[in-house]
């Protein structure tokens, strides 16, 4: 084996090793994004306390302050999940906005300790997608 092959195999080996370690490290740090219907369907995969992110829209008329916490419902149109937010909501948190919540199942509701407003949907200019096809 020449020096060049040796070097190339060395590089490939190091890259493979780094990738393996990285992917193993990744799996401990992955957060799953679920819509309410997926969260309901995969309830068994996410036992109480298992963290994931829930994406959906705050249902109109559901928002209420319960002492320190905020409760509301989140929906994706096909399923609705009651949520307790135990942290301060982000600026301009309101009903009928798309939100991303991080937390876990706790019985029949989702307990969130972090909430983000999904700006990317807000700021999308509505006509943009249309004229691409036009």
């Amino acid at each position: 084996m020449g020096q060049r092959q040796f070097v190339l195999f060395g590089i490939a080996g190091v890259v493979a090793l780094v990738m393996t370690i990285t992917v193993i490290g990744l799996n401990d740090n992955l957060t799953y994004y679920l819509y309410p219907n997926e969260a309901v369907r995969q309830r068994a995969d996410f036992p109480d306390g298992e963290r994931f992110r829930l994406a959906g829209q705050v249902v109109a008329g559901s928002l209420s302050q319960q002492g320190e916490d905020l409760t509301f419902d989140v929906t994706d149109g096909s399923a609705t999940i009651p949520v307790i937010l135990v942290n301060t909501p982000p600026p301009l948190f309101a009903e009928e906005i798309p939100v991303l919540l991080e937390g876990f199942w706790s019985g029949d509701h989702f307990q969130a300790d972090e909430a983000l407003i999904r700006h990317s949907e807000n700021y999308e200019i509505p006509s943009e997608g249309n004229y691409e096809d036009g």
Partner: protein
Amino acid sequence: MLALLGSAGMLVALIGAVLLVTRGIAAARRDAGVNLEGAARLLLAGAVATMAALVLALITDDFSLVYTANHHSTATPFPFDVATAWAALEGSIVLWGLILAGYTWFVFRRYRRAPDRLGAAALAVMGGVALFFFGLMITVANPFETCVQAAQVGCAVSSPWPLIAVDAPANGPGPNPLLQNHFMMAVHPPVLYLGYVGMTVPFAYAIGALALGVPGPEWLRRSHRSTLIAWSFLTLGILLGGWWAYEVLSWGGYWAWDPVENASLMPWLVATAFLHSGIVQQRRGMLQAWNFILVISAFALTILGTFLTRSGTINSVHSFTQSAIGPALLGFLVLVLVGSFALFSTRADLAASSPRMESLVSREGTFLANNLLLSVFAVVVLVGTTYPLILEAFTGTQVGVGEPFFNRITVPLSYLLLLVMGFGPITPWGRADGDLLWRRTRAPALVAMAGGLLTALLVTRIGWVVLSVTLALFVIGTMTGLLFEQARRRSVKTGDALSASLRQVVTGDGAFWSGQLSHCGVALIAIGMAFAANLGTHLEVGMSPGESTVFQGHTITYESPFQQSSTAVTVIGARLTVTDGTRLVAVMEPSFNLFGDQQSAVGTPDVLHTARGDIYVTLRDFPDETMAIRITLDTSPMIWILWLGGLVTVTGGLLAVRARRRERRVAVDRPTVDV
């Protein structure tokens, strides 16, 4: 009219690109009199006309263009109307094309006619890349589509033909509100693109050298110099992006491992590795094959970054575009990777370099460690960034990779890099003498440990902060020691004063000392990051008008809500006064900005800069009916060190460009002082 001008511009540029490819190949093959000037001129003229038409359409409120109709409004003030030219997808490709044409012109100016086969081949490669981007512009990302049916706001139906009867809307929705909140929007993207697109130049020389079968010092010299230019812009672009995110967007930080941020970091890491390994090839003739790999990877990563950010593939705050452009960019990426590495593997015999390393304890050894660490860093960021995409593509599961993953791996890597950075410059080439190393590290290590100890006693016991200060001082200390050692040696030899000798040493090896200046900048960044990340404080309070709260030695009083309206923007915010007991320090006005007709508000923090660090006030919600507000107060201790370090790093890069140019101009075989 402008649609016609723009379309003609794109077409002219495309023709220029085609000519550049065909004539460049001919010039590279035949060794003789093919003139490339016409092709380079056409490409540049076409690209300039394209951008000019787009900018003109925006500043003259020409809503017959779909681009203007959908991304501009009559209320958009200067400079945001101009900046809108690159704020959306199609326009950003135009900017890319313009910068690419500019760099191509720059490569052409360095092209020395007939015998310069490498230059001709590089121009052909640049032409090929330009062909792709202008082709993209004409087909799937055409910014000059005309509006044939107006909507109430913006355009409903469009046509790619410039001469069709138009139905222009009276007004458009304006650009993305996030992007018109600060003038930095006009600056950050072009600077970043200068860095991104600049990576095409070293790639073109590398591919040219591989295709012609002429490895050796020439392609490397040219690639290295052009990488230095692109790297400096990329560094500045990343820095400005971080500053913008921190100062303007109230994202509460300068870095969040957002895929878009990662997209700019990956080519930066690889380019940084190449800037170092290129020196090893220049000095010792080693690592040539590795250098080819780095240059090709840096370019491929810029295309990957464009794909990630511009195809809307990754759902992040940055991805404000969704388009059919994704498959085209992905296809181009695959073509670049497969083509380049196929070429590389057939010519690897030429690319491989012979000399062996004498010893690992040497300058070469530290460069090798640096390259290993930077490459691992880049691979980690690459895997972390693309893994969610791959997983979703194969399983449909949507996942996110958290910041802890990136931090857990990259923070230790960064400390190792700092350590190597401390040793690298003082380690001699070939084989390092242990005594010499000990002599050169002894004093800096003592200073660094003293600094670390003082930090622990006076500031904080947090290990990361103490370690950052210690390592950063070690980096700065060893290079300062080396500077004085060389100056003293020169003084003894020549009898000059030490100050004159210092100047002589620095100007005598400008490229090296510019690099050391960048190292200083990186050391400062490490300190700034450690302080900001570990020593910040956070408070959230609700206040009614007249109420005060004490935060970090300051008394903050909520005076009143306020509202200001102009045609472009309505600002709703809260006025707060900050005193340090008795004296008024500042009036702060965190706010929400509502732009034009768009309903969404952009939160704008207010930041009070002090020598000890920043006090950062964010409004949580609009003032309620009783005028009460909720605000968050944050401190970012010593964060100015981070910005200063960034500027120092960029300055080092730019000085190195200048030093290398001067070296070439002087072109004397200066005996280099081996350190």
